[in-house]
């Protein structure tokens, strides 16, 4: 059971985001970390390999400046190796280009039964890359997985829906995107962190993947400040402020 997990390394979401004034795209030149929403996919992949009793987890990522901090975190959790695509030509790439690049990187990652990705990243959140990647690779896909069970040549997935969830059966190989909260990601152990330092990361450019001309058909033309919502009254609770809420609701005629 070989599983490939697509992971994104993003600016720390705890810090305020900033746009590059010349391109209006998100600044990614500082230190990047593993997108927390990808840690669920890594955990799920490790559990699937463990259940199968054989195979390994390989990471695939695209990031500027040969960034590996986030990859090291996922390697410390237990992934075996990684393919990193790092190329200045890919700065600001759209989701379609990203999907083509990741599909190319998957081609270098060796044999696989299953590809796991997060449903959307925590910084760009376009939310189409897993499905686009599946189409590039000619594979079926199931998005928004809550659970994944592999059974011979098929995978069974509980997929979230607006109303609840669907049980889906899918042939392998396949792309499955997972939501946050589906499993409890493990903390890397000290031993894992030490071992991760020497695990192989194959760093390549777009050209190495046979992707020569890179362009995308969208352009940010301007960025506006949204009309600010005025803050209203803020009061410290003195044990009586619930009356204020009742009055407020009364004024709106919702009670």
């Amino acid at each position: 059971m070989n599983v490939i997990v697509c992971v994104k390394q993003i600016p720390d979401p705890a810090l305020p985001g900033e746009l590059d004034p010349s391109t209006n795209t998100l600044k990614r030149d500082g230190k990047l970390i593993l997108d927390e929403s990808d840690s669920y996919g890594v955990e799920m992949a490790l559990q699937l390999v463990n259940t199968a009793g054989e195979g390994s987890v390989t990471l695939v990522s695209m990031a500027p400046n040969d960034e590996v901090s986030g990859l090291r975190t996922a390697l410390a959790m237990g992934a075996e190796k990684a393919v990193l695509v790092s190329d200045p030509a890919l700065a600001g790439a759209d989701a379609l280009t990203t999907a083509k690049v990741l599909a190319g990187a998957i081609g270098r990652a060796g044999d696989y039964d299953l590809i796991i990705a997060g449903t959307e990243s925590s910084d760009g959140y376009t939310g189409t890359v897993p499905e686009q990647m599946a189409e590039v690779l000619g594979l079926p896909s199931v998005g928004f997985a809550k659970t994944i069970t592999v059974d011979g040549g098929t995978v069974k997935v509980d997929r979230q829906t607006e109303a609840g969830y669907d049980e889906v059966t899918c042939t392998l190989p396949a792309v499955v995107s997972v939501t946050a909260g589906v499993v409890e990601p493990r903390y890397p152990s000290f031993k894992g962190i030490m071992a991760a330092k020497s695990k192989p990361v194959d760093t390549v450019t777009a050209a190495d993947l046979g992707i020569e001309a890179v362009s995308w058909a969208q352009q940010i033309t301007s960025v506006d400040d949204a009309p600010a919502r005025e803050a209203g009254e803020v009061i410290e609770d003195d044990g009586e402020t619930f009356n204020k809420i009742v009055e407020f609701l009364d004024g709106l005629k919702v009670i």
Partner: protein
Amino acid sequence: MTLNNIWVFAQADGDTASTATLELLSKANTLGGSVTAFVAGSAGGAAAAFADHGAAKIYETGDLAGALPGPAVSSAMQAVINGGDAPDVIMFPQNYEGRDVMARLSVKLDRTVLTNSTDITVDGDSVTVQTPIFGGSKLVNSTFTGERPFLAAFRPKSFEAAGGAGAAGEIVAAAAGELGATGGATVTAVHVEETSGPKLDEAAVVVGGGRGLGDAEKYEMIETLAKLLKGAPGASRAIVDAGWVPYSYQVGQTGKVVKPTVYIAAGISGATQHMVGMKGSKNIIAINKDKEAPIFGVADLGIVGDVHKVLPQLIAALEARG
């Protein structure tokens, strides 16, 4: 060349048209071209509503027999486009099926996608969509620069649904081609999680609970308060991820967008992810013990206090009113 032909990926639950579809059709109908609804499965009784909101034509793929719509609907769309009826823009709702179909089609046609948008404007040949970022504090305007059709996905409640268009709604079959391996996913069972009371995205009052509640049992206060106000309980991503409540309760970027008359945020700090889903509420009440919490920046009434004290008092006061 302005916009002559606009498609909307259309959805229905049985014979009821989805609200998101009607919103997109209504907006498409103001952009000055002919409007087409493209339905996964069959439009059935929803066809009349599609036409009433502007659809002159309705393409139907026919029964998908349990297949997930992404590969099948994108294949059917590609076949129609190759057959000569090529749209200038295809509008998708930002939901599970919408983005799956859009993603597959973007690869088939080699077109970029713009998602999470809340507005679309046409200026001569140029088509621009607007997307809120950083919790809705900035609005990014992005213009399509390549070949048509342009593919864009819009958040629910970005536009008002307006009936009375009286379009023809002519139904045309549009079958998917051979899907090969991409058609390997099949739905074998459907589970509906029953909720009582109004739907989260339709309720006039929404009470949202967050991490500040402390533990999962305390969420009961949120449900009690929502029930007293004939509203719906909601949640921040933090407590959904923690497993306190199901995903269907989530308000925010990856959850539901709500615009109720009143949103009560209890123990929610106001992370970007959450604000995007509730900032459009007509009135916002926030209760949080941290007076620096970003939620107070958007609240009409902010109470700096402990939810464990204020909520029980509020519940008791409302119960006393009967």
